[in-house]
């Protein structure tokens, strides 16, 4: 690829953001709010130390969820079931973690593994159904979301509940993890004592990103996944076994999905409660799209979405409807996806041009 094309593809997200800003400005003018004031408010509030910590913390599960979705996307599968996978994984891991007593690193690690295995199996069911019964994974993963949510509700209410002090009331939440199952925040290490807690599972998220990059772009298995995603027929002819890959991709995607709830479990709530955040599985699809399945792109996407969500909280206090943030999110996603496609096509035609010029030169 020529250098200018590389620069262009690098600049695409910035161009897309500029366009999104423009469109949002237009909407703010339509509803009679001052765009400059709005953006200034959001920027000022979103860049305070407190906000930055909050944005980072929000980004962790969002990013992992996006990676889980992206593994499926890379081989042309839509894992819409990250939602059900991670809540089920988180609940079981919380319960196992609450019961177990182990030395710290082992305890925490066990919790991660339980979550990944449970979520992986839950996703694997969709892979199995697709291979054996031809059930489309979109259908089965959506269904399994509901079933998973049902199971979580049942387990919380009937089996994993916590009794209050006088043993009369059942509270639908697991017991606390013992200290060895908790991860302390990173603040002490980083010298940020005066700021809110920075979840140390952010390190886990970075590892997930590195693992994803290595797996998909550097391994033979990743090659098979990508080839199957881009051209299933050619991949089959090259010896890739589509059935095996479908199950494997779902297992890996689900396994990563299992880690979505971990920052909240070991680093914040230390138990599974009804307050445990939901919706991260669906938000992950958005982030995967926004970052077009690229490990760094998705990280930026997760940060952007978290920034918008956090910074918009200031708007209501200033008589600007905070729903504007939902609109901004929608605009950003739409514009980014469209811009990428436009640039992708432009680069393609340029490549074709270069290649055909080659042939001309030869004659």
């Amino acid at each position, binding site marked *: *690829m020529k250098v200018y094309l590389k620069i262009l593809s690098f600049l695409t997200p910035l161009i897309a953001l500029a366009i999104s800003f423009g469109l949002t400005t237009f909407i703010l003018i339509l509803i009679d709010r001052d765009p400059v004031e709005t953006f200034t408010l959001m920027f000022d509030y979103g860049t305070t130390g407190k906000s930055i910590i909050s944005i980072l913390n929000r980004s962790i599960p969002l990013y992992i969820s996006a990676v889980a979705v992206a593994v499926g996307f890379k081989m042309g599968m839509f894992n819409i079931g990250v939602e059900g996978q991670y809540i089920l994984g988180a609940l079981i891991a919380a319960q196992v973690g609450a019961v177990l007593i182990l030395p710290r690193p082992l305890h925490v690690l066990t919790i991660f593994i339980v979550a990944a295995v449970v979520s992986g199996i839950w996703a694997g069911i969709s892979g199995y159904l697709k291979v054996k019964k031809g059930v489309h994974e979109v259908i089965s993963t959506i269904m399994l979301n509901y079933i998973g949510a049902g199971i979580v509700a049942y387990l919380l209410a009937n089996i994993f509940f916590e009794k209050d002090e006088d043993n009369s009331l059942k509270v639908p939440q697991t017991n606390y993890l013992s200290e060895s199952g908790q991860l302390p925040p990173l603040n002490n290490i980083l010298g940020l004592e005066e700021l809110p807690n920075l979840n140390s599972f952010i390190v886990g998220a970075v590892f997930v990103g590195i693992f994803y990059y290595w797996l998909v772009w*550097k391994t033979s298995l990743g090659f098979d996944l990508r080839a199957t995603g881009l*051209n299933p027929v050619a991949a089959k*002819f*090259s*010896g890739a076994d589509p059935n095996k890959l479908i199950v494997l991709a779902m297992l890996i995607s689900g396994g990563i999905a299992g880690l979505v709830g971990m920052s909240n479990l070991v680093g914040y709530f230390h138990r599974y409660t009804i307050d445990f955040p939901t919706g991260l599985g669906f938000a992950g699809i958005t982030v995967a799209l926004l970052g077009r399945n690229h490990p760094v792109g998705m990280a930026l996407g997760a940060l952007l979405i978290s920034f918008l969500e956090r910074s918009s909280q200031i708007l209501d206090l200033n008589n600007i409807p905070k729903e504007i943030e939902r609109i901004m999110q929608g605009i950003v996603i739409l514009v980014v996806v469209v811009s990428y496609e436009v640039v992708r096509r432009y680069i393609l035609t340029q490549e*074709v041009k270069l*290649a055909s010029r080659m*042939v001309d030169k*030869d004659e």
Partner: protein
Amino acid sequence: MNTAISIENISKSFPGVLANDSVSFDITSGTIHAIVGENGAGKSTLMKILYGMQKPDNGILKINGDIAKFQSPKDAIASGIGMVHQHFMLADNLTVWENIVLGIDGSNLSKIKRSKYIPEISDLSKKYSLPIDVNLTIDDLGVGEKQRVEILKVLYRGANILILDEPTAVLVPQEVEELFENLKNLVSQGVTILFISHKLDEVMEIADRISVMRGGQHVGTVNKEEASKKILAEMMIGKDLPTPPNRETMISSENCLQLKDLNGEPSLGKIPFEDINLEIKKGEICGIAGVEGNGQRELSEAILGLYPVESGQIFLEDIEITKLSTRERRLTGISFIPEDRQSQGLVVESNLIENIILGKQSSNTYSSRFRNVLFKNASKNSKDVVENYDVKTPSVQTLALALSGGNQQKFVVGREIDGKPRFLLASQPTRGVDIGAQALIWDKLKDARDMGLGVLLISADLDELLGLSDKLYVIYEGKLVKQLEPKEATPEQLGSYMTGLGI
């Protein structure tokens, strides 16, 4: 004689390609005018302009002396131009006459005027000597008959200038003869025919005048009397004809691939291939001729492990591979040139480095002990293939889809021959590629054979089969019905076995 079509300085460019570069020539009415050229020479673009599917950037088009500015094929049809597409556009479940009136019958909700159409179409078929029972369903027709329906369809719409886009590509030799007979008849009744082809034999047989295109330019127009295959080929490719086949070959006594009583699993009530017994030695090219759809696809997929085998055995050298997976077979040393490079042989949205890995992603060449992809080897090998197989590409980082068809195919062939495979399955290895690429691919296949590779060549191109094969079989309805001596076989003979007549 009048000029039916006059093309004056027609230019058309697409992003990155000058598809037509000031093309000018005339087509005399009542003649068969052939347009030949390699793939990508600009024939199709010119035809699309003539048929109103594309507008020229520059230049003038005159039909029967009047300037024509077509906005869509509708305008072209109104001016009397009809196109017979290579791929038939017929509704299989309707009858011949229904297909012919489809789209022009204006009866809407009222009853369709059978009594008007049937005699009209029957008369037309008699007038132009294109015999067909108009009440038959398209499903029951052979390929040649379907083509006749397509021709009748455009004639019924009032066309007196017919464009035929590679009409013989789908026909067996006998059907080609019939088609040519029909075309001569049409011309004798005043119809003008534009015949697009890259098969020089046919062009020399049928055309009155021949225009040659190369790289978007009109190289020249010659009368048949002044032309020869050699002259045309030189005009087309700007260099000499591909070298004639080299018959001196060293066939070894060692087995390369052996198929024993191989039967495919029935699908839709049909057994795709039956009792296949084949022995291919090292250093031998074994050709299989046949009309498409006679089991070739299933047989080649069975060899690759992608089509289920009901009974029988497959041996690679002395290893039985019948039960192995596709990947294991690939690793054992089976190489494969698929009939459709874009869908089966390449991941076109990836670059050449990634594409060189395809098919060997789990081999030691491209996969480390820890299953990491060895991109270094891929980069080196892709550069080698690009160089040795004359693949025209800016770099190996270029996406495969940016390459022209011929260059894509050269790349696939290079990938499959390189790396010392034990056996090569080549399915239509030169389909749809230009003469230059074809010559190179043939040479490379011969070189590989001479180096001791065993090749199974499945093809519909009789020149290719006769020119390359050391032994030759004909497949018909899933059975190897005849073994022929390639040196002695004639196209007519092959054709009769291929259509089941020779049995």
